């Protein structure tokens, strides 16, 4: 499994730095957060570093009045539901996006996709219309990736997930870019059905020979390796590690105003405010929270060198880079050569995290809303469902799903 960088607010420097360190990688550009000039500038830098770029057109809510989104030249000047889909507007949108993808040197063409409140015939018809127009205009220039954007309710419905899978059989695309709102807007989803369905959709698409990129992911999506997902994409702030559709509307308030610095303890699958590292030090369990040398990150090493952690200048920038580097290493190591090995390794990761969390909590060290304790059983439940429903076929075709 690969990890892509999901661009959000203030991520340009992080992207260039990390892609350089990783000696390559992919970045999903965000027109919501970058103007046209920034898109081009960042794309150029990434490609110079042997990285790839993709463009998320973020056409989830076409009525959106988000200032920067609607400032992009591809964004329709006005959107009237009936006219857009029956006239030439769709063709203009795809054509403009195709040009932009070409200008940016995108590796694949992420097609626009509407947020599905329900998977109904309207949504399916529009997906098909987008794909048909894109195929007509594409002339084999790009691999086409269909955006499947799901509301929490539609993702929670097994029936709707299977309707998407049925539709997918007819879509002439190389893969899907799957984004889904978390139930109740939680950062880490506490809804096992939601997670099980996302994995079911991803595994089903993979078994149909499609590439699957799960966008707006956090470390909770390490489980996606068990569904042989091609890549997950994560970023800095919570709103690029989960998918809040409302952020594509003008009214959304960026969380940058509520900033705090969190340390990602990868072996506990949890994040902690640095003040809790002080407690850990006082209680003699700080070493338990220290990432191993092969964790892929040196950014947080200063926290474990002796002085009280809060006395150290552990910047927000370092915290983000630590999170992304560590997650990158975890993602890269998540898929093994067989389905069973991958599942067993993930189960062991959860078991290990559970033991560490128990030890830390006993010492009063808590991750608050970013603690993975309550998520462990959610992920175990979703994994059990995946193994029951898709296990036999994933086990058989694992080698073909690379």
């Amino acid at each position, binding site marked *: 499994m690969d990890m892509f960088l999901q661009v959000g607010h203030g991520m340009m420097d992080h992207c260039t730095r990390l892609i350089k360190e990783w000696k390559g990688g992919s970045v999903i550009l965000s027109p919501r957060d970058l103007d046209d000039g920034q898109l081009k500038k960042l794309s150029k830098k990434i490609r110079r570093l042997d990285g790839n770029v993709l463009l998320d057109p973020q056409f989830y809510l076409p009525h959106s009045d988000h200032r920067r989104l609607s400032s992009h030249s591809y964004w329709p000047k006005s959107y009237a539901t009936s006219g857009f889909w029956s006239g030439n507007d769709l063709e203009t949108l795809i054509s403009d996006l195709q040009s932009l993808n070409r200008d940016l040197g995108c590796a694949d063409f992420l097609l626009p996709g509407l947020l599905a409140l329900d998977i109904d015939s309207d949504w399916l018809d529009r997906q098909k219309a987008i794909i048909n127009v894109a195929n007509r205009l594409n002339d084999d220039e790009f691999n086409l990736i269909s955006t499947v954007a799901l509301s929490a309710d539609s993702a929670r419905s*097994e029936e709707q997930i*299977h309707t998407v899978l049925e539709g997918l059989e007819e879509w002439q695309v190389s893969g899907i870019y799957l984004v889904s709102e978390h139930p109740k807007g939680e950062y880490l989803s506490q809804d096992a059905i939601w997670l099980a369905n996302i994995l079911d959709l991803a595994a*089903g698409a993979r078994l149909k020979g499609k590439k699957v990129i799960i966008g707006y992911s956090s470390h909770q999506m390490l489980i996606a390796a068990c569904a042989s997902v091609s890549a997950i994409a994560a970023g800095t702030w919570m709103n690029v590690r989960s998918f809040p559709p409302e952020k594509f509307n003008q009214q959304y308030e960026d969380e940058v105003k509520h900033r705090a610095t969190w340390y990602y303890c990868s072996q506990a699958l949890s994040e902690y405010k640095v003040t809790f590292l002080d407690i850990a030090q006082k209680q003699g369990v700080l070493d338990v929270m220290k990432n191993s040398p092969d964790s892929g990150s040196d950014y947080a090493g200063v926290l474990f060198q002796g002085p009280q952690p809060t006395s150290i200048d552990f910047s927000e920038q370092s915290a983000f880079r630590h999170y992304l580097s560590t997650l990158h290493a975890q993602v890269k190591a998540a898929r093994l050569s067989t389905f069973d090995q991958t599942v067993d390794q993930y189960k062991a990761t959860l078991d290990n995290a559970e033991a560490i969390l128990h030890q830390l909590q006993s010492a009063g060290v808590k991750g608050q809303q970013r603690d993975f304790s309550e998520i462990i059983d959610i992920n175990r439940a979703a994994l059990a469902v995946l193994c029951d*429903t*898709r296990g*036999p*076929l994933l*086990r*058989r075709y694992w080698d073909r799903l690379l």
Partner: protein
Amino acid sequence: MNLNLDWLAQVFPTISSLQPIGRGGQKIVFSGNHNRDGKVVLKLFHIFVDPERAIREVQAVQDIGSARVPKILEVGTTNAPFGDVMWVREQYVPGEDLRNILSRGKLKRNAILLLALQVLEVLAAAEKAGITHRDVKPENIRVDQNGNCWLLDFGIARHLRKESLTATADTFGLGTPGYAPPEQFRNRKPDIDARSDLFALGVTLYECAEGNNPFISEARDVGEVLRRVETVPLPPISRNIEETGAFRDLVLAMTRTKLDHRLPTAAEGYLWIKEICSKEALG
């Protein structure tokens, strides 16, 4: 339809020793000795059966052209006192039907693997011909004296490339409760294909391994059987049929309730079982 054996002997003078061996919803089946072909099966379709369905059964067998399906030797229509009766004379397979064998207990591992291999071979051939059997079950599998398996009775087979003979408005489709998958008994026609036969064969294989069909065992009525098929996944086979667990996986993949979770084609199933049997030096 009551048939007098003397009358039959007159109508089919080339067949001696005619004896009834089965009676179903669509036909009465006899065995007898043909003066040229030896022991044969004679099927007489009830007069209320749509002749098109009888013709489709014959066509299905001919189109599949599998060595594991009894050959059609002759087809005709005869005038009976109660109307015209369509008949089919076909190859007789000496042996025993799987239901009888199962009544004595579970099958041995090699017999299960061979059954899976040979019936999947037929289903792969049927899939290639665009035909779905729709009634795979122990009663329709015959095991001959050499232990080889034959798939019988294509009476409700569906030609996917031809117009359906089952009314689309029917709430329930054809098939046998406890073996037919949800899409079949719910009569969701666009969803019925080789995967429906894979489901039924998977349940049959489970029954061979475990000695019972959990969808049917101790069910109060047909409604409960259908409810179980729709809501309770078939559990994994508990016996160790072969070392790798691949056979257990194959049966699970064949019997998932949701179509998208199921093995996608009979050809894939046949390839899979061939690999398993090859490792076990079988077949």
